[in-house]
């Protein structure tokens, strides 16, 4: 019998990757040349992802606290759904 799979999300990147590593840090931006009083916390994330060929790339990005909370909330939703599928 043949393996079948559902068509993938019509993703703009067209290539799905596996997450190999997830590193994070919580930082506080204090001051900058354009703003002496920045004072905002942020979450910096470094992902290591592997494509189908096994090649590993690093992707870094930052989130404000509200963005992180939304990110976290979405993952909880995903967990809830994946449990029931």
């Amino acid at each position, binding site marked *: *019998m*043949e*393996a*079948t*799979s*559902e068509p*993938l*999300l019509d*993703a*703009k*990147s*067209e*290539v*799905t*990757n*596996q*997450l190999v590593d*997830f590193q*994070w840090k*919580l930082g*506080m*931006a204090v001051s*900058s040349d*354009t*703003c*002496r*009083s*920045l*004072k*905002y*916390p*942020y*979450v*910096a994330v470094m*992902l290591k*992802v592997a494509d189908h060929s096994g090649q590993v790339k690093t*992707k*870094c*990005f*930052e*989130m*404000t*606290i509200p*963005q*992180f*909370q*939304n*990110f*976290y909330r*979405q*993952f*909880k939703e*995903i*967990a809830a*759904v*994946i*449990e029931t*599928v």
Partner: protein
Amino acid sequence: MAAGEFEGGKPLNGLLNALAQETFHGHPGITEELLRSQLYPEVLPEEFRPFLAKMRGILKSIASADMDFNQLEAYLTAQTKKQGGITSDQAAVISKFWKSHKTKIRESLMNQSRWNSGLRGLSWRVDGKSQSRHSAQIHMPVAIIELELGKYGQESEFLCLEFDEVKVNQILKTLSEVEESITTLISQPN
């Protein structure tokens, strides 16, 4: 030129808006001459220039210090008292402008100071992937997540990731650790 020759009101509000667009929101291109001719047509260019510089300086100072309303009032009052400062009329316009635009300006300053990519969007789907190996059907749900990332002023990059249930739960655990750190940080006195 006396500060009083520049009226406050709508022209000044328009000027502050244009300055904010240029300085904070990254939309330059409104020339000094255009501003003068639109907002202060009766003022000579060589008189307009220092006035514009003064307003730009005041707006930058207020934004840089992220002034709260007490600090703002104190600062503007001091500006009205000094030689070559501003009128109380102009102070009122500036005060009103900062109060209504503070959040947006602050957000722009935050975005400008972030040199990494930011998370612009997240979409996801859970697939029930069915594979048959030999004669057994194996049901393996998979979450597909698309992250939209982008640096300030640049186009988005899309990253698509696949997670099985085990991976999702691992990430969830990591995220709860992040949240714990945030809670600890926020609960500490500044």
